[in-house]
């Protein structure tokens, strides 16, 4: 019998079998071992229309489109990060060159907790692999509107930070409620910056959410929002730690649920994020996702102890989820300048200060940000960042579609930057990255 994928599906599988954060860390060599066993034993790569690709390595320039790495890219990364981000980039290139219709970068280490400024690792992430791919797509392929849907159990605070001010990149994160899980953020009130109010959509779900509640959220919040936004591309940050066996979270999602989610969301590219139930979940979840992307039957992909009746949410939990979705939709429908004025007020410049914790590397960072309010583009901004490792840097960002006024403002900020160890200019309008000491 000739099996054939309905959608040409590309896969980058890079388990980094010789890399770990440390030997007993969840992000260790063994993490994708049993996933490899399962997808190899299933013979998925033999199916006509499913093709495995070797990942590319990203360049420093790819990283500089997204991050201010302090002091530079090689210092805050390992070669493994260049490969995992490279895997995502490979899928983007194959998609744009038309060799595939769907792509799944099944790579590690993950990236969605990495923010714009990088002093080190946080939440097992150093550089944001989806954002690096997205900026590659914008620069090399001129893709205008992109939606990132983060279905990792943890709030994708890094991706949120990177696209906070950008109304052209919609960021939706579904995650276990931040009151009950790292990184403790991702509340509905976090809705994007003054120039992009409403274009960050956080959907905090209660612990024990299972198939019904999760898929309800996808169908009643995520999909309607995507319908409105009309992205050119949909990216899925496909964390797998909502699984009922995950050791570091409290959700009840399943392999069937993940496969159905993938089918509903229908992303152009999925990128693996977290997921630490390496034996009981990952082999099945990944097989399910690959089959769903390829448009093949996944109904037999069931965990050995799968029992939907036991996993099902209580009525209260479901009702709570319905309310969350209603509020999310209500806020989405109010997105734009009006919402911005209500939340941020009307100002020429917006300032904010915050402190950021790098749990993986034990670093504290203090940030002061100033943003030019703009209705013509995403707005230039300037970040002053200080870490307890002694670094003081200034980073200036000029957006991809910068208007002349924001461009001039950004250039001026960079020119006048002083009193820091290093200053960086990330001029996305010219795909340029400058630094000075």
């Amino acid at each position, binding site marked *: *019998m*000739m*099996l054939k994928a309905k959608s040409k599906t590309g896969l*980058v*599988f*890079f*388990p*980094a*079998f*010789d*890399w770990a954060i440390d*030997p*007993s860390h969840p992000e*260790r*060599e*063994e993490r994708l*071992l*049993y996933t*490899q*066993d*399962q997808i*190899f*034993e*299933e*013979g*998925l790569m*033999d199916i006509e229309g499913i093709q*495995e*690709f*070797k*990942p590319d*390595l990203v360049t420093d320039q790819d990283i500089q489109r997204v991050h201010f790495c302090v002091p530079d890219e090689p210092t805050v990364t390992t*070669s*493994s990060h260049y*490969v995992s981000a490279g895997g995502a980039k490979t899928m983007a290139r194959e998609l744009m060159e038309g060799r595939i219709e769907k792509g799944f970068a099944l790579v590690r280490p993950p990236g969605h907790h990495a923010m714009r400024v990088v002093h080190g690792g946080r939440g097992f992430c150093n550089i944001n692999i989806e954002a690096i791919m997205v900026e590659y797509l914008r620069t090399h392929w001129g893709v205008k509107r992109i939606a990132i849907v983060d279905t990792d159990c943890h709030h994708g605070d890094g991706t949120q930070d990177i696209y906070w001010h950008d109304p052209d990149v919609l960021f939706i994160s579904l995650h276990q409620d931040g009151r009950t899980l790292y990184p403790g953020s991702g509340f509905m009130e976090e809705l994007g910056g003054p120039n992009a109010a409403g274009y960050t959509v956080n959907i905090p779900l209660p612990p024990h959410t299972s198939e019904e509640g999760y898929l309800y959220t996808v169908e009643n919040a995520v999909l309607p929002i995507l319908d409105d936004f009309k992205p050119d591309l949909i990216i899925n940050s496909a964390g797998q730690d909502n699984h009922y066996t995950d050791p570091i979270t409290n959700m009840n999602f399943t392999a069937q649920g993940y496969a159905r989610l993938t089918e509903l969301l229908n992303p152009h590219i999925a990128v693996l994020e977290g997921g630490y139930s390496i*034996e009981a979940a990952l*082999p*099945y979840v990944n*097989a399910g996702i690959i*089959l769903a992307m390829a448009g*093949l*039957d996944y*109904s*037999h*992909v*069931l*965990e*050995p102890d799968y029992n939907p009746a036991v996993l099902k949410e209580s009525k209260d939990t479901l009702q709570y989820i319905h309310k969350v979705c209603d509020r999310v939709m209500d806020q989405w429908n109010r997105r734009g300048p009006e919402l911005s004025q209500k939340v941020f007020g009307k100002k020429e410049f917006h300032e904010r200060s915050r402190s950021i914790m790098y749990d993986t590397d034990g670093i504290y960072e203090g940030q002061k940000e100033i943003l030019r309010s703009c209705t013509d583009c995403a707005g230039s901004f300037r970040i002053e960042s200080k870490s307890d490792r002694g670094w003081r840097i200034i980073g200036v960002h000029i957006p991809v579609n910068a208007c002349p006024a924001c461009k001039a403002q950004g250039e001026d900020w960079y020119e006048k930057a002083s009193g820091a160890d290093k200053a960086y200019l990330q001029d996305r309008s010219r795909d340029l990255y400058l630094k000075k000491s």
Partner: protein
Amino acid sequence: MIIGLDVGGTHTDVVLLGPEGVLARTKEVTDQENLVDTVLRGVDGVLGDIDPGKVSRVVLSTTLTTNSVIRNTLTPVGMVVAAGPGMDPKLHTIGPSFHVVKGALDHRGAEIAALDKEAVKKAFALIREKGIRAVGLVTKFSVRNPSHEEAMEKAARGLFDSVFCGHRLSGVLNFPRRVASCWLNAGVHDAFSSFSQAVKEAFQARGIIAPVHILKADGGTFSLDAALECPGETVLSGPSASVMGAIPHAPSAKDVLVLDIGGTTTDMAVLIDKVPVLEPLGAEVGGVKTLFRALKSVSIGLGGDSVLHVAGKELHIGPDRKGPALCLGGPLPTPTDAMAVLGLFEGGDRAAALKGMEVLGRDLGMEAEAASCFVLKSLCEKIRDAAFAMVAGINGRPVYTLHEMLEGYVVKPEALLVMGGPAAVLAPGLGEVCGLESRAVPDWGVANAIGAALARTTCAVTVLADTQRGFVRAPEEAYSAEAPVAFNMADAIALAEKLVREKALRLGADAKGLEVEVLESQEFSMMRGYRRAGRNIRVRAQVKPGLIRNGGIA
């Protein structure tokens, strides 16, 4: 003395080799209906008056298995499979009587669901009702734990003439290929068994007492008796003979492209320091993907008889063949005609060739000679592009460690070895368009038979140790033992080397000079919580393909 036979689809090349080189050779027409007769004609042809007792080894390639698959003449096989979580096993249905029974193992070989022995019995009864005498038994992850296949095998005993299990044929993970390979083994067994019996009897009758070996898809050999245990391995043994035949002429320590240019196709392979590159998983024949180890080889539709035509000022070569060249009485111009026009091919009607090339040249806006040069150059360029694409494919194979990603071997062809009819004519042109040193394999007409004659016995074994579950297994070799907590990589490598050595000897290898190498070795700490629960060790060892000696050939 060694006899090597390459039994091809249309003709059979045979050589008799002494220590100093080729003593005798012959070429026979292959009778597909009577391969044994073909083999005997070949043997008689090279032996002449020589005492058959002096023959120390006979190696033959055979088209038997490939043809059985392509012509769909395998004996009917009943399949009983158990799968567990994953794709629907019915999607892998093969053969006239395919049965899925309950029972499941996981990636570490733990039982998820017990085997439904009643269902197995029922399946056997249904298969027997259809009059089917061969059965293949496969479970998912049987290479991690063969117990379900073994239980089925036990139950099948006495009920069928041939019983094949998935875990014995390869240690590689890939359930669909395991199913197909097991089916192929069981389906070709009857025919292979008769062939093997007939060859043995005929050789005995002629006084040849030497061990008889069969060439495998990976360019290695195994004895006739060993072949009965896994006859599917003989698939594609013909193409592997040619590649092995190029090895004596390949420079050491270089990456070499082997190009075998035939009438309608060019077969391409890669040698790295005289060792052929293998397929990652196994041979594919007639659309059936298997786990039988095989040389990496790519076939493209370009050859001396490929039909030439011009469409919109553009020259097209092949992929069709519409008969022989014009100069040999064919209907349409071919690259052979271009050679004839340029005086590079004797023995044909040059006038006919010239006429054809004149017509072709008119469409291209060229004189016949210029058009002929253009045709040959284009042919070389097309072969080059396909060959370089194959190399890019090999270099683009996915890897799973940073080490391989950053320091993995990159194939960079440094020389060409050209075989086949137009080899001598095309070798210089190919070298030129590729920018590489290039030469025709001398005496290419028997190189394939020499390749078969000198191929060494090959095999591979996979060892898996799981110290948390407390076992070390090599299901291919029916090996299973308890693994103490202290079992480590060195132990696993020692075991794999021992098993692969024993296997090679059992398959007919010469103990003298037997070299074993470790192909892969991976060790993982299995952390549960913050505690190390055990080690998961995977080792794959092999005897790699190569020649027993260069033996006065080059």
